[in-house]
Every structure is written in C-alpha cells, then in structure tokens.
C-alpha cells in the first residue's frame, strides 16, 4: 500500500519527466531543424498577436486621429502612423488577425476539398478520375493570382469573396498531389482486403486511405498558409481584397506605398515587413513539416 506522500512524489517525478521530454523535443527540434523552429516561432508569434490583439493594444485600429497623421516612428507611435493618423503597430497587430483568418480558412478548406477529391479520384479511377483530372488540368493552367483575380472580379471585393477566390485554386493543387499518393496506396493488398470484407467505399476511403495520405496533405496545407497570406495581401493591394477601414497588411500597402514612399516610407515598410515575415515563417515551418513527415527526406 502506498501513502499519500508517495503518490505525490510519483506524480511529481512523472510531471518532471513529461516536462523534460517536451523540453527535449524542443531542444531536439531546435538542433535538428533550426530554420523550421524559427518559422514556427514566427507562426506562433502571429497567432499570439491575432488572438490577443485586444490585450496587446488598447487603440482602435480603425479610428482616425487626423491630428497625428503621418507621424514618424517614435515614442508616441512605435511604428509611426498612416495618412489617417492610425497607429501602424496596432494595425499590424490586427492585420495578423485578418491574414491568419483568411490564410487558415483558405488553406484548410482548399486542402480538405483537395484531399477528398484527390483520394476519391484515385480510388474510383476510370471515367470519374479522367473527368476530375481534366478539370484539375484546366484550373491549374491558370497562374494562381490570375485565377484569384478573375474570381474576385466576378464576385466583387470583400473578405468572403477573397476567401473563395483563394480557395478555388488551392483545391486542384492539393487534389493532384494527394491523388498521386493515393494511387500507390490503392494498389496495396490491404485495400483489396478491405473491399473483400465488404466495406463501403466511404469506409475504405476515410479509414484506410485518407490516414495514409496525411503526410502530403499536411505539407500542402502548411505551404498553402503562406501562399494564402500572400494572395490576400496581393488582392488587397490591388484594391480587390479586404476593404478599408479593416486592418489588413496588403491594404495598408495599397493606401500608402505609392503616395508616401518618399515622405513617409514607414507607411509602406512595416506592412511589407509583416507580409514578408509571415510568408517566410510559414514557408520555413512548412519545409520543416515536410522534412519530418517525408520518410525519404528523413532518412537522408
């Protein structure tokens, strides 16, 4: 029989070992994948800014303070102000919320739809596969930004339409990659065994094929995050994305880059830095995920 104090000691030891294993994992990751760790840190910082924007700054990102228009970075305004006197630091922080919202929504919806289509296309094959792949060919023939521009031009600007415009080109990209992996899995005997056991198509796809294409799926998902942020910024910069007065990095560039490039360069510099860092961070993180999940790369 154990006493209370013995139970407490055992729990503490277990806790310590857990903590040391998490710490070990972080140290291992830092040592083995320093760039991915740097990327992950940027991603985490962005998520932190987006979630706790209200706590990080008490300033309204949309409120004009015209008496402080185009103030240079300094004590009062750490990153300066824009032409409407809005604090740039606050708008950068809130801009992370817009970027992540659009980025995650597009990446998750786009890659999930691509996953379903890709696996289904590989599993069913035949005419279904042929039709799906030709449609994918057509959509993939257009450069990403051109397709997104065409969709926004048709639907009109606005956050919802930007999400649709960015998501559509992601679907075939993910479907194509997932299909190639799923084709290989389809030929493995356990899929035949599942069929022989009389499992439904849905069960075979969801239970036996999808889990085995998660690696390429996750790699596509993380790479889409950076692309989506860049696309949203591009569309907003072109005036076809998020609309004023919403805080969004591309929109901040659009409002100030041309007109104030010489007299107030900070108006364009900070959102530019934010976009670059975010894309850089997601790409590094995505590379890390790929290196971890791809067995061929892992063995090298």
């Amino acid at each position, binding site marked *: 029989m154990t006493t209370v104090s013995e139970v407490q000691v055992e729990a503490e030891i277990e806790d310590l070992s857990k903590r040391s294993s998490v710490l070990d994992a972080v140290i291992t990751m830092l040592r083995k994948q320093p760039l991915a760790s740097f990327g992950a840190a940027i991603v985490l910082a962005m998520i932190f800014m987006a979630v706790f924007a209200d706590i990080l700054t008490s300033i309204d990102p*949309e409120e004009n303070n015209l008496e402080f228009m185009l103030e240079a970075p300094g004590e009062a305004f750490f990153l300066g102000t824009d032409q409407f006197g809005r604090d740039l630091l606050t708008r950068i922080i809130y801009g992370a919320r817009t970027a992540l919202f659009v980025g995650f929504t597009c990446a998750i919806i786009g890659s999930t739809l691509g996953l379903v289509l890709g696996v289904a296309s590989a599993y069913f094959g035949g005419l279904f596969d042929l039709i799906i792949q030709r449609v994918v060919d057509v959509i993939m023939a257009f450069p990403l930004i051109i397709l997104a521009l065409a969709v926004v031009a048709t639907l009109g*600007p606005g956050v919802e339409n930007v999400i649709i415009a960015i998501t559509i080109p992601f679907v075939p990209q993910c479907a194509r990659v997932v299909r190639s992996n799923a084709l290989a899995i389809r030929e493995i005997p356990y899929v035949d065994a599942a069929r022989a056991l009389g499992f439904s198509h849905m069960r075979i796809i969801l239970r036996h094929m999808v889990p085995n294409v998660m690696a390429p799926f996750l790699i596509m998902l993380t790479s889409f995050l950076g692309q989506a942020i860049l696309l949203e910024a591009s569309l907003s910069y072109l005036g076809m994305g998020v609309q004023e007065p919403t805080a969004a990095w591309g929109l901040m560039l659009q409002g100030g880059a*041309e007109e104030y490039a010489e007299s107030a360069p900070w108006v364009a510099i900070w959102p530019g830095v934010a976009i670059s860092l975010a894309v850089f961070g997601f790409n590094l993180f995505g590379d890390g995920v790929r290196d971890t999940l791809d067995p061929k790369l892992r063995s090298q």
Partner: protein
Amino acid sequence: MKNTYSKFAVSLAVGAGLALGASAANAETPKSGGVLEFVVPGKAPSYDGHIETTYAMVHRVRPFYSLLIRVNPDNPSDPSDFVCDLCDGSVPEPTEGGTKYTFKLLPGVKFHDGTDLTSEDVKATYDKIIFPPEGVASARKSFFKAVESVTAPDESTVIFKLKFPTGSFIPALATPFNFVYSKDDLDAHGYTWHKSNINGSGAYKFVQHQKGAFLEGVKNPDYHHAGKPYLDGFKAITSAKMALSIQAIRGNRAAAEFRGFPPKARDDLVKALGKKITVQESDWNCVLLATPNHKIKPFDDTRVRQALTLGLDRWSGSKYLSRIAIVKTVGGVVFPSHGLAATKEELVKLKGYGTDIKAARAEANALLKEAGVPGLEFTLHNRGVDQPYKVVGTWMIDQWKKTGMEVKQQVNPTPVFYDVLRKKKTFDVSLDFNCQSVINPIADITKFLGSAGNNYGSYEDKVLEDSYNKILQSGDVAEQRRLIREYETRALSDEARMMISLWWYKINPHRSYMKGWKIAPSHYLNQHLDNVWLDL
C-alpha cells in the same frame, strides 16, 4: 462677355494667386515648335464630346475641335469671362428681352477635311445636343432647357431663341464638350460616327491613337486663331496609375497631367525638381457627396438622413483631408467661390455644417433613436478610385463610427460602381459626385433634383422641383440667390436628400518649360492647347 452674374464675377482668388508662373507666361513671348507630351490617367470611352462626360476624353480630343464660344483662355478662373471661338468679335448680348442670341461666325474656318465650316454646321451640332432624335444620347441636353430653337438664316449667322431669359444659357454654350461637328459628316455617317472618328476644326489634326498607349495630334496650319497653335503637336500618353504619372513628370517623359495630383505628390515633385516644376492650384467645380438610397429602409426616413449629415465634421475634415486628398473647401450646393454660393454664416445654419460637432453628433444620435435605429448599420458603396473617393470614403466611415453608427465599405471598379448606381440600385448609401465644367450654378445644382438624370437617390421631391423652377425663371440675381438658399436648405438640411462632404481642390504641378496653360476651376476646361508653348 459679362453675363448677369458679372457683379459676382469674383476671380477665383486661390487659383489666380497660386497660379505660379502664369504672370510670367504673360510677360514672355511665346515660342513656336516642339511637341507637348502629357499623361492622361483614364481611358476615353469614345471621341464623341456630345455623349461623354469624362476628362479622359476631353484631355485627348478637345484639341481637335472648336466651340462656338469658350471660357477666356487667359482668364479661365473667372466664371463669367467668355470669348468667341468660332464666332466673330465678342460674345453677343441678348436681344428681345434676353430671349434671342445672334452669333456671327468667323469667315474662312475649315474642317480638317478641307470643307468649310458654316452656320449650318453649328445648327446641326446644337440640334444634335439640344434636340437629339429619339434614341440618340446627349449628355447635356438638360443644360439647354430654355432653348426654343436654333436657326441659321445665312451662311455666317446662327440664332438661338430662348423660351425665357436665363443667365445659364451662355455658360452652357461654353461647355467644352460642345464640339462643333460637320453637318456633312452627320448627314453622311449618322449620329454615332463621331464616337470613333474625328473631323474637327481645332488647333490640332488627328494623327493616330494607339489605344492604351498614346494619342497623337499635329499642328493645324489652317487654324482660325492667327499665329496659333504654338506647338508642332501633342502626345497624350495613357497612364493608368497615378504613381506612373508622377514618375513620368519627374523623369521628364511628360510635361504635365491636367486632372490633378494630391498635395503629397505636389510636395514630392517640388522637392525633387525645384524650379523645374511649376504648381498651379485652384478651387475645383467638383464636389463629393453621399447619396442615400431613399428606396431602402431606413434611408427613406428624413431623421436618418439628417443623422448622416450631422455626423460629418466638415470643418475639421477640410483642415486635415486637404493635406492628403484633392478635397478642401466646405460648401453648399453652389461652387464655393461663386457669388451665388452660401457664405460661412449661411452654411452653419444647415444641419451638419455647425462648428460644434459634439452637439451635432448628440442630435444625430437622438434622431436615430427617434427613428428606431440607434447604432445604425449600413454599407457605404464606393468607387475604386483612390483620389478622392477612397480617401474621403474612409474618412466618412470614421466620422459615422464616431457618431455611433456601424459602417462597412463596398468598393467597386468604376463600371460596376455605375452599374450599381444606375441599374441595380442595391446600395444603402453611395459616394457620388457632381463635377461640372463651366461654373454655371443654375445648371450645376440640378444634381440635387430627384428627376435629374445623374441623381441616384430614387426620390421625388415636388417642393424641390418647384423651388428649382423658380430659380430657373428668376432674372434677378439677388432673388436667385435667395431662392438658391431655400433650395439648398431643403436639399441638404430639411430633407437631407444628399450629404455634401467637401469640394475638390485642383493641384497641377507641371514642368516649368510648359508655358501658356492656365489652371481653370475644372479639369474639363482650357484643354484646347492652342495657347500652350514650350520654353525649351
């Protein structure tokens, strides 16, 4: 000619005062030769002045055509100084109680195809503008409501007979869109030929137009103003982005852009080019408005519309927005520098024009509560053009938010913007504008009438229509002024049919070697280029 507004013919002090280099140009002897290169930011839908309303057409095409009369090129800031272009001598005074104007034409004027320009051509032109056949568009038909007939009793005489005397006739006649076309062209090719063909009698002859790139004109040696034009030709370069236009002037690939730049662009160019750049500035006969859609609730409620106008701090907006946008002046329905415009004392009596913004916003909140829509939520429909639409739109949204309203913005490219305004009519409140050429308050203020072709508010206001008809038929300037105040009070305050934001302010930095061009209070005016020369 000095028309009935002559005693109000205030030279636009700002324009005249800031027209740097203008006086110098007067003192210098013009030199002949050279090709003027300038940038035009927009694209011209067609070459037909009678149907178009955009500066993008005027800047490119106006140099090819003549007008019957025009704004004095040496004094374009004066709203009552008109001179003959195709007519001989000075602009005629009316006879028969102000209802008959008889114009004698200059002899020997020829179209670019070599045919003679006669009174029949002028008559055919104005018949097309004033009395277009059914199905033929005419953008300024309503300017000539008072005209009963146009006749050409002989080869060199044109007579305009009016139904009643009106001071708005001569300014309407000088509108720079009233290109005089050849009757033979109209008879032979029909009323749509001028949309894609040019045969004028202006200072320059058409050479080529590479759409999306440039349009070229060459000097007309048979031009009817002796010794002009000074230039060998001009090249209007298409420049879609303002940044490109600025860099074109900075890099000396173009001498000017005639629409206007915001203050920051002016400052950057002056800083970079010093004396090589000359800046001319003027009040601008353009005003940015917000038009509520009266067919959509709750904007059919006067209290809601009044709350919208009460929420705008125009005086503070003028102070700050004039630093970043091409807007500046607080005003009512009439061009602010005109004698018929409201004074500040008169303006502050209107809702939304007071100097105590806290009190105004408290009143706005009370009105919204009373109307049952506290914290009103709506979408501002805007045009995808930075200056001044998007800048002022962002400012207005902030102003309304400070009043407790929740406002989103929907920005559309120009064709979609107009489609929503004119056809779909699905907007809550839209940014809108009233840009005119010759300062002609009696014609310009028709914008606020529900029946006007360019009014998108979807309302009928018989009181306002009656008020306007009284103004139109009033011959006495003091009486007109009093009636316009009544009209203005109803349109902007009592019914708050539209919310005026700020009047535009024109800033034209151009290369100092471009001489002779004088800024006018409109981007449509003084673009014939026959008095422009290069001091290279």
